[in-house]
């Protein structure tokens, strides 16, 4: 029997599945990031880590970094509906585990005009040593402007401190108005 579907327009679900399998993805989500969604993702990941009998220390680190990553998406995602046909409040989030390391991937649209500000925060954080990050954190905590949304880069500083890794990021230009911002974070046992 012939299918009525135009196969060329359909997603290759198996291909996506295999990609995720190869990368040991534990959980992935694409869509609008809401407060309830964050609560659910955190609960699911916490349960998964308990079931996998993860070391309490690593579990805490992963949980903390997850909170910051997800709340970054929630607070700072640009609304691009005015300048683009793309779905406005949509983002992607994935978490995987490979050889004892947790890998967190996030991606969201950003207005090109906001890139330089974010890039300067990321580059500043990446240029600092562990001790310098500690001082920078205290400085921003004590003097930084705090809005309803959060604290002027405090989240990124915290992620860098807790993971002990550089922030691996990229801006993929979509057109002259918007880009796609990706952040890859590695969490390991070591401090």
């Amino acid at each position, binding site marked *: 029997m012939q299918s009525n579907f135009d196969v060329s327009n359909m997603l290759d679900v198996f291909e996506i599945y295999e990609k995720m399998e190869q990368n040991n993805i534990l959980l992935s989500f694409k869509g609008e990031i809401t407060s309830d969604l964050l609560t659910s993702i955190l609960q699911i990941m916490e349960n998964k880590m308990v079931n996998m009998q993860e070391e*309490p220390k690593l579990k805490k680190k992963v949980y903390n970094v997850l909170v910051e990553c997800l*709340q970054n998406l929630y*607070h700072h995602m640009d609304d691009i509906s005015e300048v683009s046909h793309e779905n406005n409040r949509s983002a992607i989030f994935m978490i995987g585990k490979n050889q004892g390391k947790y890998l967190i991937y996030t991606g969201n649209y950003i207005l090109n005009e906001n890139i330089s500000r974010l890039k300067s925060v990321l580059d500043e954080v990446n240029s600092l040593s562990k001790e310098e990050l*500690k001082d920078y954190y205290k400085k921003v*905590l004590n003097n930084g402007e705090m809005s*309803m949304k959060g604290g002027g880069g405090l989240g990124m*500083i915290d992620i860098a401190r807790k993971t002990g890794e550089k922030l691996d990021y990229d801006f993929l230009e979509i057109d002259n108005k918007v880009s796609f911002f990706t952040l890859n974070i590695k969490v390991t046992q070591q401090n």
Partner: protein
Amino acid sequence: MDKYVIEGTPKTPSINFDLNGGVLEIKGRSIPENSIEFYKPLVDALDKYSSAAKSATTVHVQLEYFNTSSSKCILDVFKKLESINKGGSSVTINWHYEEDDEDMLEAGEDYQAIINVPFKMVMVNE
């Protein structure tokens, strides 16, 4: 107002502030998206308390997790306590951390470096 009490939720800590006894406890998780909204009533309660503070004020902070959005609000709470300490009530902040949680210990030390109030780092066995 004798007491300011808030039940904990998966995203916000329990708060137990006994104004007559001069004891404030903050326990649990503090990871709300909007921390200012959550902490404002506590800062207001501390304001009220400061006008009739006890000779000693004991604070226990025992957090499992807190996000960076909360960290600034917690600093605001500590700054209130700093001014209460200056005003004559001797304040002690007991910062509890689990044995293996170096990040939480370090977070306490960060506050200790900023706030001019005696801190005690209290290790809790899991």
